[in-house]
């Protein structure tokens, strides 16, 4: 059930918030995302890109977590 508004997290513009819909990664990578509290309906905000454009820092449940674009592209979100 992919909605047309849904985008991978890596495309979320800086300063915008979004709601997590699904994770498309598997195995260990998926587990790590879950541990950070990235479950369905969690709100994330794109805070800042690093000097060379990747990774990007996101606010997740009050903490600031940097994710590489590879990881962020496996997180499908609905921008607010």
């Amino acid at each position, binding site marked *: 059930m992919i909605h047309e508004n849904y985008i991978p997290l890596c495309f979320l513009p800086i300063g915008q918030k979004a709601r997590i819909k699904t994770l498309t990664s598997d195995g260990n990578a998926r587990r790590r995302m879950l541990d950070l509290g990235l479950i369905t309906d969690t709100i994330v905000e794109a805070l800042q890109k690093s*000097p060379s454009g990747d990774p990007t820092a996101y606010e997740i*449940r*009050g903490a600031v977590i940097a994710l590489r674009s*590879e990881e962020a592209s496996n997180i499908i979100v609905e921008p607010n």
Partner: protein
Amino acid sequence: MGLTAGSTGLHAIDHALFIDRNTVDKIIALAGNPNVGKSTVFNSLTGLNQHTGNWPGKTVTNASGNYTHQGNTFTLVDIPGTYSLMANSPEEEVARDFICFGCPDTTVVIVDATLMERNLNLVLQTLEITDRVVVCVNLMDEAKKKKIQIDIHALEKQLGVPVIATSARSGKGLTELMDAVSAVSFDRVRHNPYGVIYDKPIEEALHLLEPAVSKITQSNIPARWISLKLLDGDEVLIHSLEEHLGERFCDNTLLIHSLNQARLHLAANQIPQNRHRDVIVSCLMKASEQIANKTVRILKVNHNDRDRKIDRILTSRRFGLPVMALLFGTIFWLTIIGANYPSDLIGTGLFWIEDRLHALFLSFGAPLWLDGLLISGMYRTVSWVVAVMLPPMAIFFPLFTLLEDSGYLPRIAFNLDNFFKKACAHGKQALTMCMGFGCNAAGVVGCRIIESPRERLIAVITNNFVPCNGRFPTLIAIITMFFLGSVTGVLKSALSALILVSVIVLGVVMTLMISRILSKTILKGLPSSFTLELPPYRRPQIGKVIVRSIFDRTLFVLLRAVSVAAPAGLLIWIMANVTVGGASVLTHCAVFLDPFAKLLGLDGYILMAFILGFPANEIVLPIIIMSYMASSSMQEISNLDTLRHLLVQNGWTWLTAVCVMLFSLMHWPCSTTCLTIKKETKSLKWTLVSFLVPTVTGMVLCFLVAGGVRLIGLDESSSFLSFLKA
């Protein structure tokens, strides 16, 4: 830069922890998310000096210490910080195994008052394993600043175990914490721990599985939790459990049957096996959310604004990298300018003492060889090490620790990650690299924060490419002597810092290049997934930092250097004074090494100093000085000018200086680091690779530079600046 007596060398590697149950009353585990102040609580209670710093993942092993409270002895075990007990990495495994199988009398879960929602997740997971838990809500002072209110009583009611509010950095709440730990350990409180209720299909599946599990666990690990892990398919834990219970699960037909039934039941409810964990984690997270909603009030919506503003400068596209270079440049500049005068002073003082010692020996009528051995050999080498090492370290360590405490190190990893990604390496390698500045052995141990074995090996092998504090003074001394001839004053020290930064940048570039080459050859693979937490900035406790870094680090490192320098000094003196066939042993060795060393732009004495410096890099320059002095007329050296004179007398040119610096940056790791690598990789092969990679790189580079420069005939002049002028 986890550099204390406990964090380097052989202590650091003790994975297994043996505690004698007979000598202590109770064993307490300290658990918590990374960077919640576990080590600070540990140090405050035990009075020990476990290294602390504001970045996630610096405690990678279990550390333990004792404290006494109301007449009872407690052993406190500081376990690595983890987000969950689902063991996705070696450090999480260490943490979980200790809580499960270490049988602690009480587990203290430390949570960050400013990040309750995520931290409660770990509390709930711990409560599923044991009800002997005390929750310590730490960083209350920071929560207050951010206008986050926590209703401790309501939280205690919700969780059903004691909850204590603390601000460990200022020592607030620690007595109450010890009271609560003691109460739980001696069964003086009634527990009513919160139990997470999972979605209906999971609960039904657990119901199918639990009876079979209960049959095989007589131990204190709850059957419900084991059942959850079986559904989750956590292979590492299942293996640990089988070892602990002494029974193989796959041999138990009843268990296998029940597990299949439970899985079928979940499948019938549209939960395939690879999504069991999702459902379990979601339920835990939602429970945490609910508890947080009932107990935490955030009065100010934008409570993280200050940090965001700082980050917008320190990690911005325009300023991120320049600010980083400037910060490090400033630290080196302060180190160089501040160390200069004390170095001279200490040198003069120690050599004045040397003269008195000589006189004393003479007045006792001691034989000349004894005077030479002990004073000219041992004492003088030790003096050199102290004079050259102590001042820069006493300035560099506190400054670096301030940077570390403020929370800047993870920002370095954030800024540099893209370069590491392009080198097919892990972003956290930037952190282990920073630890290498302190001590490469500590950096190698720190590589445990990297989860993927391939990337961890790359980080281990390349750690030696950043100069440790044992090599900084050598680099600084050579830069000052050979590259800034006629420059004076502030400009001189600023230029030295600039050259030193360039040397370090070269080290970082080599790290990246070699990482990439390793990724394309013997350690093929793609970068693994990477998450990095950027902690809030904290104001460092300046007084504490200075005291701690001088006593814990500087003196420790200095003592280690001195303990190696003393026998090395003896050896050098013997080699210089025992003659075989008309020449000293020292000269024989140097002559033997000379042809090869010349190819690298060095000479036989220098190469031998590097070889003898294998136990500690700090003694390389002192050994070079001792060797030249033993074979030269010059007997008194009190400052860098006379030292430069000695080196030039022995044929040094600016090219020699460049090659010594290059070789100092890139040669074999010191013996402590090699031993640490052996312990960490458990492989002689990778230890050998770690030995050879920087050595071969350094030799090739020195050979190319020396050969290239000689080819165009530029190495005549002894000063780089006079060469420029000419």
